[in-house]
């Protein structure tokens, strides 16, 4: 049996609903219809009365989840696309994220954001918002890159007593497959997705796979590039990053969100500040371009980093 990343997300929700009667799902078209991507397929049938279609009201959806969490429920909220969470932004960063700090009341909600670009999706169905949410205190930001992580991290999200922004990547939904869900790895730890000694790529989500391909390309040139999969961008596992850079002396941070600030700037800033002496070359970063995400696949392919861009950056980095 082979499971996709999308199926892993469904299965994790199935498991969460099965294990804990306090879990419920709330989102647009997620009940009978099973969601725009079918991430909740059949769940309304398997768990009657626990999967709800919501009105098109992202602000109220998050607010309602916060209220439910206060009462001991553990809601999983699906945003139809990450991009639409901009409408629920205030409730996420000001209501959910501050609740515990202000009132000592835990806020166990999981917000699923179908994230990232796919061809032809355009400026409003392609965004990667992890950099935005990670800026705010009080949120946990997860960015699974594998089928296994999609499953285990979503399941663990529901157990976490804080608001989790679960950035699942739409490009991986069908592309990525695995035989089983393997072993759980704790949230907060990065993973060495590929060991190497000449340079370190720190990345996450769909960019992991582009990076792995680039590392493979560089192997043909005789380089061993280490690839670190962050898994969660906040908390960010600085120790694992620094240990890798200690081995390789070279850093390339790769992300799919917009280039100004965000995950890759945070990676580079941490490494430069905390492990300056370990660096043999200037740290580099690679992001999407500083424009909205283009509709036409020709443009889109150039907008986000892909294997070609990453290989080219690596060559620059290694040449230094």
């Amino acid at each position, binding site marked *: 049996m082979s499971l996709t990343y999308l199926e892993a997300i469904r299965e994790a929700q199935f498991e969460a609903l099965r294990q804990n009667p306090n879990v419920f799902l709330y989102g647009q078209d997620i009940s009978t219809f099973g969601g725009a991507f079918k991430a909740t397929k059949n769940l309304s049938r398997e768990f009657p009365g626990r999967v709800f279609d919501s009105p*098109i009201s992202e602000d109220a959806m998050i607010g309602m989840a916060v209220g439910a969490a206060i009462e001991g429920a553990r809601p999983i909220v699906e945003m139809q696309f990450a991009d639409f969470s901009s409408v629920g932004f205030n409730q996420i960063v000001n209501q959910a994220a501050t609740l515990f700090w202000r009132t000592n009341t835990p806020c166990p909600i999981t917000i699923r954001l179908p994230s990232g670009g796919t061809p032809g999706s355009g400026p409003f169905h392609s965004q990667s918002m992890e950099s935005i949410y990670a800026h705010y205190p009080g949120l946990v930001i997860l960015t699974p890159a594998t089928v296994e992580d999609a499953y285990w991290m979503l399941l663990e999200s529901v157990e976490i007593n804080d608001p989790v922004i679960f950035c699942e990547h739409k490009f991986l939904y069908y592309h990525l497959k695995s035989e089983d869900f393997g072993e759980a790895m704790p949230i907060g730890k990065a993973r060495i997705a590929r060991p190497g000694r000449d340079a370190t790529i720190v990345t996450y989500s769909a960019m992991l796979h582009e990076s792995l391909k680039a590392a493979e390309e560089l192997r043909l040139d005789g380089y061993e590039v280490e690839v670190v999969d962050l898994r969660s961008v906040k908390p960010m596992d600085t120790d694992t990053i620094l240990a890798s850079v200690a081995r390789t002396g070279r850093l390339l941070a790769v992300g799919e969100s917009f280039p*100004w600030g965000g995950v890759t700037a945070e990676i580079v800033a941490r490494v430069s500040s905390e492990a300056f002496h370990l660096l043999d070359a200037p740290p580099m970063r690679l992001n999407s371009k*500083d424009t909205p995400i283009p509709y036409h696949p*020709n443009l889109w392919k150039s907008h986000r980093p892909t294997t070609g861009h990453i290989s080219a950056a690596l060559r620059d980095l290694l040449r230094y």
Partner: protein
Amino acid sequence: MLSRTLEEKLGSLYRAGGRIVGGVYLGRGQEAFSAAAGIHLRWGKDVYGPLIRDQAGRIAYGEPILDTMRTYLGVVTGPMRGRDGNIHRGQPQKGYMAMISHLGSLVSVVSGALFARRLLGTLGDTVGATSIGDGGTSTGAFHEAINMAAVEKLPLVVSVANNQFAYSTPTSRQYACENLVDRAVGYGIDGHSVDGTDLLACLKVFRSAFQRTRAGHGPQMVVGRLLRLGGHGEHDDASYIPDVKKHEHEGRDCLIVAQQQAMDLGWATKAELDEWLKNARREVDKAQAQASKEPTPDPYRESWQALSTQRLAEGMGQ
């Protein structure tokens, strides 16, 4: 006059019917309602902010079919130059607003244009119109914008196409009132209800709504009851639309109704209607042929600049 109006309308309906290759979110079943609004708007003069299912309204407003085709095909000659696509197209400088996906958020933009025209003395007899679906009425953006338009007493007509579903979500999970038109009184604006499958009725109600708003009575809300005859997008088989019987009346095809009305009133014969359809098909084919020949965007020639002010652009490329 009415006949002429109707003629244009039917033409546009046909074209909307013989719809575009690559189109994804269609307005099947909503053409009469959409076109009846669009026909009251003057291309290049009035402000129009159409939504997903307003292909018919767009044509009635005056958008060239070629622009539609170019946008769907993503060629650089189209108004969106491949940067954005399909239903997001528009030419704001002409008053033809280009929606973003976030439902409800276009209403305030259309209002702002009208507000500015009044302020700058360029309003004249122009008006604005925009649309929303039953689902979109649940957005805070929609509420804020309607309320603001009411406070500013703007000449705005808002069409609410209640097609009974928002994607798969039935209205029972979207709102709890009897009829969405009941919201009008709470905003202090005029509300109108209409059978959205009946072209003549739609024309009539929109004519009066536009008259009223032009006469200074502020925003008008026109709620049309109809049914989306198809899936949410072309990928969707709409298997969740449960009992066709339940939707018997709204479920009738407004296009067939309109054709019958045209014939009954003697505005067109069956032969003429067939001829219009043929012409429409020909026009669509022609646009498609033309657009297909045109260049798609080239990332190396793209400026990759989000700002119009060159000197402030950072050019943060890869």
